[in-house]
């Protein structure tokens, strides 16, 4: 199952590593990553697509705790097989 997370995060040097570290450690596979600096350059718009059979709340609840994450919403989930 793929899950798409739309994240707004403070643009700090390690913020992407933090997102990826939590994603890996909590047992989710990275299926896509896009990031764009927002107009003020102080924050980033990040779309993180992850794949796992685990419930997605186990990841989102941990990502929410990252100090640099300002907003996080689950945009949608799709079966990996359909998106392949």
């Amino acid at each position, binding site marked *: 199952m793929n899950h798409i997370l739309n994240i707004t995060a403070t643009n700090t040097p390690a913020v992407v*590593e933090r997102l990826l570290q939590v994603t890996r450690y909590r047992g989710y596979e990275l299926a896509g990553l896009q990031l764009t600096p927002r107009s003020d350059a102080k924050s980033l718009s990040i779309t993180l697509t992850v794949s796992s059979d685990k419930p997605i709340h186990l990841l989102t*609840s941990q990502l*929410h705790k990252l100090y640099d994450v300002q907003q996080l919403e689950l945009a949608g989930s799709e079966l990996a097989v359909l998106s392949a």
Partner: protein
Amino acid sequence: MKGAELVLQVLQQHGVDTIFGYPGGAIMPIYDALYQSNVKHYLCRHEQGGAFSAIGYARASGKVGVCMATSGPGATNLITSLADAMLDSVPVVAITGQVSQAVMGSDAFQEIDVLGLSLAVTKHSFMVRSVEELAATLHEAFAIACNGRPGPVLVDIPKDVQLAEVDYQPERGSTAKAVPVNTSLANAAKARALIAAAQKPVAYIGGGVHMAGAMPQLQQFLAANPMPSVTTLKAMGSVAKDNAHYLGMLGMHGTQAANLAVQQCDLLICLGARFDDRVTGNLQKFAPHAKVIHVDIDPAEINKVRFANVALLGDMKQILPAISTNNNYTDWLAHCAQLKQQYGWRYDHPGERIYAPLMLKQLSERMPDNSVVCCDVGQHQMWVAQHMRFSSPRNHLSSGGLGTMGFGLPAAIGAKLARPQDTVITVSGDGSFMMNVQELATIKRFRLPVKIVIVDNQRLGMVKQWQQLFFNERYSETDLSDNPDFVALAAAFAIPGHCITRKDEVESALEAMFTWPGPYLLHVCIDDKDNVWPLVPPGAANEEMITELKA
């Protein structure tokens, strides 16, 4: 002023008067500023020890612990202790020097990517890129360490930032006060309904209760709703000593009464705990008849490993009164009291040799009120949890989540500096003690009257116990029969000591230890065949405890 001086100014603004650390090249400007500072620095003899002292200081006092190290090896030596603070939710601020920004990224001498290393072991971490952002970053670090679920924060400061000049005027109120915890009582009525409907409730108490400052509210809750209670390793001492319904620690080495009550209960009220695997045993078989009320400050703990029928998030001090009802569980209390009596500890161990559980019970009864006991990790740690009683979790410092050998001695140094009026005792094993033995030099230097009890079975006892039970008695690398002479070792650090081997020596040896005004080492030799019982084997349910088997 220089950035380095600013660091110390900000520490003082946060009320920090005690820090632990070790100097080195990339943090020399801060150590130079320390030379004339009112902040008292305690030189550890290994950065891991210094950070454990900061943890001991924080856990014994409730304040933020602060430690420092230089770049490279200094910083990497902090990592284990930061991981320990992370898993036990201890507020610590670690400050590391970093090579100058001009050479960062060039594999400079003593350069390592500390920010990268910190990701898995801190609540948050910072790399300070300019002296202008230094003060705000340090204030943020303190706020993050204490707010919500506490944890360690690392601030990496390049040498050029420490040396840069800055105009700094401490602003009033810039030491961010604790942010109020968002608390929702929306589910309180549902929780009260579950408690009212329950026939066999159990309160499962974790470290989150005392860390929230909710010890009074807990006693009130247990008085208004008399029910059996059990605690985790981190919460030992949360339940008042005179509470008759307290059943002890639950989990792998918990009491049989605690584990059986939890397995039989129909409602488990989890207060500031996280269903750790050492608590639950086989998760699918844990408390199989129970509905769950889960109260925590961290939303990520809700439904992480066990589904909660009702969850309440936020400040334990507000939540406990809000879920209180007045119910009567007479039959259930009687049943649990019977379990407690049936499975009470026995101390009538045959033979002349010292029986560690009895010795620790004697220590517990003899130590002054409000003593702090700092454990290491292994069999002695479980015996302490089983056989000693504490009046507060701040009096029992044990490495819970990470299970870090080498924790006890440096943690005791921090605890003694946090609470100089209270007796501080390290209970260590012969394996663990050697892992941060260099901190004896810290005790010597500062003449810290820490009492050290080494429970010595000449083995890595807990690993040996598992080898005996689950690895066909193949004792791979667990023999420590060539241990040093611990009393002679202590003497080399001007610490007097005494070695005992017989039961009838225990009382007088404890008296001598407590009577001696300074640090003291008591070397207690025990039978290597003694094991920790009961034990829930891996993969088993908590009612499938095994007891007593000699090697």
